[in-house]
């Protein structure tokens, strides 16, 4: 499976007028690619991820995810698209505290029938179990969230992001709360799962020791011209 997962062109975004936060002329990510995205604080990483996920709407330009133009979709359509085709992992606090591990992993499946359909004939229980085994959390499925370590929580979050094989996985500094050993382990599991799903992985991190593990590195400072635009104006 190949093709373009993400295609941005001439994207401009500002929370307030005359104060552009993001100005990206071109960014393209193919399916199966793992991208290490870095940049200092305030370089617009979170904004970019918001646009990629369809939570934020670009002011101009085109945002094409899996050949679909986000800029032509309504907020509700983008919500539905995200539910079906995207996986998202936060830095921390990824889980709904009052649901079990199993319920947390199943949330995207429960929320969207299309995502459920992607599992095919496989039962929900089977799907969760497979995902949990891949990420080494099979023994925790019925544990309450409060009893998990941070590393375990992040792996549950990854399982939730990856269940139902989304085409695009976005991870916003998911390893920053983990120690070095756990970091490597988490990444190995994440990569394996992404490869299996042929998903494009956009991975934001400050930790440059992880860079060699990715197929490509993108520096947001290089591609975001917002700062130069602002100083020019």
């Amino acid at each position, binding site marked *: 499976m190949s093709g373009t997962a993400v295609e941005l062109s001439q994207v401009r975004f500002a929370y307030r007028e005359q104060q552009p936060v993001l100005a990206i002329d071109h960014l393209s990510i193919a399916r199966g690619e793992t991208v290490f995205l870095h940049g200092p604080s305030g370089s617009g990483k*979170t904004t970019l*991820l*918001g646009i990629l*996920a369809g*939570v*934020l709407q670009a002011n101009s330009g085109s945002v094409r995810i899996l050949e679909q133009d986000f800029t032509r979709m309504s*907020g*509700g359509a983008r*919500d*539905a*698209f*995200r*539910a*079906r085709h*995207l996986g*998202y992992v*936060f*830095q*921390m*606090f*990824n*889980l*709904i*505290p*009052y*649901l079990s591990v199993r*319920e947390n992993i199943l*949330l*995207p499946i*429960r*929320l*969207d029938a299309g995502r459920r359909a992607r599992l095919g004939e496989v039962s929900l229980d089977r799907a969760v179990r497979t995902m949990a085994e891949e990420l080494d959390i099979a023994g925790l499925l019925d544990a309450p969230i409060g009893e998990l370590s941070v590393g375990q929580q992040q792996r549950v979050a990854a399982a*939730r992001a990856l269940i139902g094989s989304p085409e695009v996985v976005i991870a*916003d*500094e998911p390893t920053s709360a983990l120690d070095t050993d756990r970091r490597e382990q988490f990444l190995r599991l994440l990569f394996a799962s992404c490869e299996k799903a042929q998903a494009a992985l956009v991975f934001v991190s400050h930790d440059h020791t992880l860079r060699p593990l990715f197929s490509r590195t993108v520096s947001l400072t290089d591609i975001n011209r917002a700062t130069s635009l602002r100083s020019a104006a």
Partner: protein
Amino acid sequence: MLIPRLALHSLRSRLLTTSLTVASIALSVTLLVGIEHVRAGVRASFAGTIRGVDLIVGARGGTLQALLSTVFGIGSPSGSVKLSTVERWKTHPAVKWAVPYSLGDSHRGFRVVGTTPEFFERYRFRNNASVTLTSGHIAAGDTDVVIGSDVADRLQYTVGSPVVVVHGLRDIGTSSHETHPFRVVGVLRRTFTPIDRSIYVTLEGIKAMHEEDANVPGAMPGAMPGAEAPPGMNRLSAAADEQVSAFFVGTRNRFEALMLQREMNTDLVEPLTAVIPGVALGELWQNIGSAEVGLRVIALFAVAIGLTGMLVALYSSLEARRREMAIFRAIGAGPRTIISLLVLESGMLALLGCVVGVGTVYLGLAFAQSPIEQRFGLHLSIRPLGITEWGYLAMVLAAGIVIGVVPAWKAYRTSLVDGLSPRA
């Protein structure tokens, strides 16, 4: 089924906040429904002051005056009725019984009523309860007195206590009918009606008392300063046709009461006013019923406070749940999902509050019903919820749902902006 399950899990995970919110709504609902029950109880007990009497007939005058002076012992009757008139109406085919009722004397602030023993047989109150004695017997002789329970309690009277009746309502030495001392022969059981504050003697007793007075110079009732001698109460010519203040009538067929009322109101021999007690009580309630509105307003305020508490609880819990909303947004939950989740939660809180509140009312009634009845004479019936109460509950539920929409919408908007940032 995802959203109901989420809502349930979510509410259960915040058990303390949930129970406090439910408790505050339940308290308001308890107050609202409880007040409604008390209001209905007060109204019923008021309407139950007099039963079994189809018409109260007095001299021509206002209907409320006739009712107040006879049943409630407030004010004085508009005039008097000849005993012969009572006897005449007694023979009317529609009349089953007629009991004379004579006012104008008192004993230490309590009204003295002259009537016949039949009065105690006929008079009913509340749900057809009849007047009974705790001790002694009904007044039969012309020195016999039967006292209500309040009279007995306040004056510490028992069977055998002497009673000196005075003319009018105030104790002024010279106006006492000292020459005709009465003696308590019976004490009535508490009725929680004005009967408890009355003293009953026989018509013969009243007659004898005034006849003896007529022989004592300077004790003429009509000449007393300050004494509230009602017009027509002047019994100077006791030897002439005897007079009473009013008479109570029972009809053979209750449907004839209206016809009989019209007939009596147009009596050619003596100008009369016949009052149907139920109708007059209803009119009176209309006049004093503004207290009811006050009760309702208080109850509505209580509900407003309860709902505000719910709004505050929802809002503050939402602040703690921004993270949760962000997660839902990240996995693709749209406004419908988020709003239905939060609205369902607030709806469930309101519903639970209603159920607990109504349950508390019925539990409270089950325990307090008979103590309240014994203590205050207020019979609070355990009955199914009425239209008003269902209306209140629907209002609380609707308000709970509407209140949920506000933070839900805010949650969606907020998480749209900062939902995906890791720092929320």
